[in-house]
């Protein structure tokens, strides 16, 4: 479910069941035209649907990290965000992107969902397999 769907007073009750956080990384850098930016967001939404809909009872989606400039600075910022999310109690962090060039190593995250090297988005079956493996690991 989205972070914004959860009312403050529901959270204590839900928290034990929602142990996984989905952090979308849009991967824009400011060179995109409006329509290119829209395309990236739509692609990201399509791949997010494959996680959010089937697993909505256990995964909470946080607001997206939109802009990424080179790997190093962004890597640190995202790693820090993941560490903070974990310290507030999430057991698993899933990073998701529709861009193939921003998948850098984040030790604090447990899974990246990203296009394959040839640019194809992963299938629903593949995503489900990875998420289930993560929960059983």
């Amino acid at each position, binding site marked *: 479910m*989205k972070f914004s769907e959860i009312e403050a007073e529901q959270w204590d009750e839900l928290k034990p*069941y*929602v142990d996984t956080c989905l952090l979308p990384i849009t991967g824009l850098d400011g060179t995109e035209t409006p329509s290119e930016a829209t395309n*990236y*967001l739509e692609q990201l*939404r399509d791949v997010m649907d494959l996680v*959010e809909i089937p697993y909505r009872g256990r995964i909470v989606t946080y607001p*997206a990290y*939109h802009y990424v400039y080179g790997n190093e600075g962004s890597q640190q910022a995202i790693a820090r965000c993941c560490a903070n999310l974990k310290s507030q109690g999430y057991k698993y962090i899933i990073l998701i992107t529709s861009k193939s060039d921003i998948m850098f190593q984040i030790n604090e995250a447990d899974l990246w969902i990203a296009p394959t090297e040839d640019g194809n988005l992963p299938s629903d079956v593949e995503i489900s397999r990875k998420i289930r493996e993560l929960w059983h690991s």
Partner: protein
Amino acid sequence: MSNHEHQDSKHQPVQRKEMSRRQFLSYTLGGTTAFMVGGTVLPMVRFAVDPLLAKGGESTLVKVIEESKVTAEPQEVKFKVRQVDGWYKSETEKVAWISRDASGAIFALSPVCKHLGCTVFWNTHGRNEYDCPCHDARYSRDGKNITVANLPLDEYVVEIQDGFVYLGGIIANTRA
């Protein structure tokens, strides 16, 4: 007709305002458009924008499979339903698990877990039950809740016409 046009134009500023809010949220959330159906304004707008679509809704029947292909073993069928959310029309994919009971009657279950809404799947653990991957809820063939969830899986309205199975809106489970 002129009355209708008048109504539409009267509502346009509301639509624009809602749309920009929606876009803002959508961008903030990472491109998710199916988000936050507005509270008090949208139902009115929905009617003003396209009254015909508003009537379609859940009760539309969709052809999903030949009747002869449905067996006692549940099968997953996917089908598209047109949805209207304010001015935004979209096609949503729905999933049903369809099978015959002991008397041969066809029924279709919704795979949305009644615990917290994950998607259940038939027989992932070899127990001939529906299993939820999130917190291990289990449901019988009829959708009856066995563990974790407090309610049985919902059903779709089923109609058989000319050798095909049609599915309609969601109803509470009638079998469990």
